[in-house]
């Protein structure tokens, strides 16, 4: 690191201290996620590194916990439920959220702050309160312990993310583009699909992925609203952590981390593309 000539030894010490501190914080952020990946290949049923693993003996590593997942009908069943709930919740949240964001971004929208506060509230209200409320209400109308009930609940929890990301994409949206399109004879529908949609699509997909991961990770509402038949992966993990701890949990966690990495990469690429499309950043 090249310092300007006026920086004294104390200044340099501060700088290196600062870099080391930042490095430790990054370690704190990322290490807990990475440490479970090698541990999930542990041949022994322990939650810690064995001597053999540290010596990199091939025998100390195995994929038995992954085989465990595949061979366990309970896990596969939960995985199926998780995907079904997350996909339908995402579709519902994305459609409703995108349409609402289009309305919210218009300058003619009355009571905008108040409406926005209501629409974002599912993200703010503590999950335990949402879950308890939904438990009573959905039981009353017969939706508790059903897949549609769970999908509705997860959809409403996901909508704030869609609203936020799509509204953010619409900030600085050049409305003369839609006017030009209408001027040239396109109807509102055609204008939406040909002009607006391609520009806000990155935001919609990002929001949708947020909604997806929200549903896919959610356990508190599932805890209250789902019966045995609607068990999802997080619910199964929760039971695993509380009841019979086994490294299978770590294998599942590793798979979930891989899914997160995949989604994160997609969202980052989309964000950059969107910024480029809207001319907001050079890179």
């Amino acid at each position, binding site marked *: 690191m090249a310092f300007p000539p006026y920086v004294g030894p104390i200044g340099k010490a501060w700088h290196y201290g600062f870099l080391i501190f930042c490095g430790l914080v990054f370690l*704190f*952020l990322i290490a807990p996620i990475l440490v479970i990946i090698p*541990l999930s290949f542990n041949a022994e049923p322990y939650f810690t590194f064995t001597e053999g693993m540290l010596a990199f003996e091939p025998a100390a590593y195995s994929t038995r916990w992954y085989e465990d997942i595949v061979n366990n009908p309970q896990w596969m069943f939960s995985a199926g439920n998780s995907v079904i709930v997350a996909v339908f919740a995402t579709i519902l949240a994305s459609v409703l959220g995108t*349409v609402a964001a289009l309305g919210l971004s218009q300058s003619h929208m009355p009571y905008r702050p108040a409406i926005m506060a209501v629409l974002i509230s599912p993200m703010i209200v503590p999950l335990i309160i949402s879950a308890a409320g939904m438990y009573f209400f*959905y039981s009353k109308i017969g939706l508790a312990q059903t897949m549609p009930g769970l999908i509705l609940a997860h959809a409403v929890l996901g909508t704030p993310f869609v609203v936020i990301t799509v509204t953010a994409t619409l900030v600085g949206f050049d409305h003369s583009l839609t006017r030009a399109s209408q001027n040239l004879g396109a109807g509102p529908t055609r204008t939406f699909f040909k002009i607006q949609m391609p520009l806000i699509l990155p935001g919609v997909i990002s929001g949708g992925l947020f909604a997806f991961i929200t549903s896919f990770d959610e356990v508190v509402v599932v805890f209250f609203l789902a019966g045995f038949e609607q068990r999802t992966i*997080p619910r199964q993990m929760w039971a695993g952590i509380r009841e019979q701890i086994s490294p299978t949990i770590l294998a599942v966690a590793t798979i979930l981390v891989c899914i997160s990495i995949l989604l994160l990469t997609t969202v980052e690429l989309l964000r950059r593309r969107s910024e480029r499309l809207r001319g907001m950043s050079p890179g």
Partner: protein
Amino acid sequence: MTVDAGTAPTGPILAADGTPLKVSLRKALRVRRLRAIALVLPLFIFVLITFIFPIVDMLFRSVENPVVARNLPITLAELENWNGKGLPSEVAFAALAKELVLARDNKEMGKVASRLNFETSGMRSLITKSVRKIRKLKQGPYKEALLKFDKRWALQETWLTIKRIGQAYTAVQYLAALDMKTQPDGSIGMQPEDRQIYGLIFGRTFWISLLVTVFCLILAYPVSYLLATLPLRYSNLLMVMVLLPFWTSLLVRTTSWIVLLQRNGVINDIMVWVGIVNEAGRIQMIYNQMGTLIAMTQILLPFMILPLYSVMKTISPTYMRAARSLGATPATAFIRVYMPQTGPGVGAGCLLVFILSIGYYITPALVGGQSGTMISNFIAYHMKSSLNWSLAAALGTILLAAVLMLYWLYNKIVGIDNMKLG
């Protein structure tokens, strides 16, 4: 042009179809406003029905108190005539006897007994035993028989409890949630020392949230500064390390903390191996408040870094340079010139982290043990285990009120529009 300037100089300006331009413009604006509303309406109604209404409905449970009022209407009506001195009349005793037997036949007696037992312990057994006794009696007078059977029926307190719990709407759950109760004489006082728990839990929830917020700020500030000042190539790469935890399942991250922190976990192993502690001195870092603090700080850290980063990104480095060239030391320049400009980011990050941590449930439940549990865990306990739903609703209302106040503050200071995700 329909307006002829020569003949109608004072008349209103008209649009192409002959209507005044003002009217026509207002009409066009109304159409656009209606269209905007029509776009927002579906989601608004969806959130209202599937989310807001259920929560409001649940909150009403905290003041609703239907069980006793529903099952003992005549008794309660009779008790209205009783002045609270001496004992109620034979009519009231007889009404109670009849209604308790009826409640038993309707399988409602257990609920009545539990409800009364929440208020005064011992009522459950008194009710169930008395009903058995009453069923053996073929006819009155019930007053004499009940008084002889259990002397608690001779206590005014017993009857005052029934009368009080018989009200269809009550604040009694809120008193319980604040560690208070109605004394037998009707005045409001504190619970006995050994039953005062919720004050402690609310205090602890507040304290843990505050500590997590402070820890997050201390850790996030330098990191955000680094991210904001590095060239875009490097900062984008490091940003991934902030966003990955953000995208990783809460359960996964909590699980990894269990793996790291437990007595035979990775961190203790390393410390033994390095020689900081010996085999017997392994530190218990989990299933207590420490575990909750460490795990929650890591989980909520991205929510502090992101708003700080987005504010720091907009601060021009020229101000610092100006301060330095005017003779400020690096420390002075940083504290007096840079830090005040990060105020909005600090406010946004702290409020967001505090709001999120005050309602945390999963992490304290899994790594909190006894000393690390928070108010959400007690709400879940009363929902799932003790089945005292009214108390759960009262605790939930208090928590929700706190969160909504902070949310309002956040909206006032930061604005929801400025909330960013990644």
